[in-house]
């Protein structure tokens, strides 16, 4: 077995694992804040921004696409924050309408983009650029972890390092606001500042996550690991550690399977394995607590 891998492959693997760990780290906060749909909303909003940039194929670089995606995602979050502050609508209602707005916008831009690219493809001089745009559309919707570019992989690693530093600095305040936001404000901490810092990190992570698993599935990596991890712990720090471990393990396994067997798509496999754990582990835990008395007297009580 050849254990030596080249620099580019190593960077791609590292980039995907870095994203998986970042998503795992944020996952407990996302679920405890009851913002499980926020990942979907952010990803679809980002997609609208990316599609807008792709309308101009010659402008489409990793940086411009990142800026386009981030701008659209920020706009979506600004709308969410504004509606939450200024209206009495429930959080899930606000999430649902904002999510719908940006999915619809992304679809409008997608349809327009396909028509636009078909038209451009008839002009011979722009063929390569339009082909690249078509590939990028698939890349950002469905994800393709194995085909990360070096720039994308480096971006994912940079985001992971920044996220780790931010988590080390602001863990205490984020935990406080997640647990009791009203009381946290009486201590003099600014809700807006805390929210801005967390959302900035979350949006950037989701946005760069599109390079890895794509817009359709990225939110699963922010929700599923903490659901699976909750089975094993009732404390926040171990929950974060376990969520990171789960995402790391499923991503490693999916990348390994993808490299060994042709035809296995890594992105959907990562999400499939993580989501499977999020369904199976709570079911096992529930069954154990429900039927443990059948295993004998030793299992009757909690230990």
């Amino acid at each position: 077995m050849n254990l030596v891998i080249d620099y580019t492959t190593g960077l791609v693997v590292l980039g995907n694992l870095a994203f998986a760990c970042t998503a795992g780290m944020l996952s407990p906060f996302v679920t405890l804040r009851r913002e499980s749909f926020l990942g979907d909303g952010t990803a679809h909003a980002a997609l609208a921004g990316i599609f807008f940039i792709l309308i101009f194929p010659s402008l489409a670089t990793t940086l411009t696409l990142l800026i386009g995606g981030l701008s659209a995602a920020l706009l979506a979050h600004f709308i969410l924050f504004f509606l939450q502050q200024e209206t009495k609508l429930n959080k899930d209602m606000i999430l649902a309408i904002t999510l719908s707005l940006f999915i619809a916008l992304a679809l409008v831009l997608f349809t327009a983009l396909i028509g636009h690219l078909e038209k451009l493809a008839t002009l011979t001089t722009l063929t390569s650029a339009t082909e690249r745009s078509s590939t990028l559309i698939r890349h950002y919707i469905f994800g393709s972890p194995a085909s990360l570019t070096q720039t994308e992989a480096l971006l994912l690693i940079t985001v992971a390092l920044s996220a780790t530093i931010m988590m080390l600095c602001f863990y205490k305040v984020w935990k406080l606001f997640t647990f009791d936001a009203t009381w946290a404000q009486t201590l003099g901490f600014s809700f807006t500042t805390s929210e801005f810092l967390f959302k900035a990190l979350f949006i950037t992570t989701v946005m760069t996550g599109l390079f890895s698993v794509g817009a359709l599935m990225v939110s699963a990596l922010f929700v599923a690991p903490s659901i699976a991890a909750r089975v094993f712990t009732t404390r926040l720090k171990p929950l974060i550690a376990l969520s990171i471990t789960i995402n790391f393990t499923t991503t490693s396994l999916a990348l390994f399977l993808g490299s060994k067997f042709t035809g296995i798509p890594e992105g959907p496999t990562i999400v499939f394995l993580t989501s499977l754990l999020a369904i199976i582990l709570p079911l096992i835990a529930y069954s154990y607590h429900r039927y443990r008395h059948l295993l004998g007297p030793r299992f009757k009580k909690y230990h």
Partner: protein
Amino acid sequence: MEAVHLEKFEIRYGTHIAACGDNLSIPLGVMGAIVGPNGAGKSSLIKVLSSLKSLTSGTGTVLGMPLPLTKRQPKLKIAYLPQHHHFDQTFPISALEVVLMGAYGRLGWIKRPQKADHNAALAALEQVNLLHLKNKTLGTLSGGEQQRVFLARALLQQSDLYLMDEPLNGIDIESTKLIVAAWRHLNRAGKTILAIHHDLSTLQAYFNHITIIKKHVLASGTLTRPFSKNIQTALKKAYQTYSFISY
């Protein structure tokens, strides 16, 4: 200096007036009850005093500092105890971790709790007789135990004014005794306590000052046994019943 001083104040939610009054003064060092029927504006008043909400009109000070407090240092002089059921019961956190949050204000954004903070948190838990449950998940504790955990968190804040929103609501006798004992301990140390209270039969046993509110501040003053004439009149006006007169 007074603990609370409000003048010609109004607290509104849109066009709805939650509470108002011409003058409300509560001296330092009292154990004060804020009483009134449901929807009288008691919680709104507590929120204004803890700077969670601003006065719509009028002026006010808390511990001599003009409202609303915006900086962190002045806010640390006031501890707020919310209603105990207002948190996620499934949150993965232990009783000790909740109490430790009382030190977060002093620590600021970046600093982490040190050994001394842990020891202070353990001492606060001991004061409310919950040291044996320090590692229990908060959601698994009873309502009374949860309220004692939150009181221990407030104790760790080492503030000068304690504002409590219905701290004895739905609490068993044992927890009530422990909570009131902790208040007395604080009060002896010169701290001011203001709590929203619903049980008129225990007013004189637990408190030495009363503020009666029903949208308007009806009366505010020292609590005597039996009730003074103006307190009796205000209570009648607030509750529209005479059954409390025997207290």
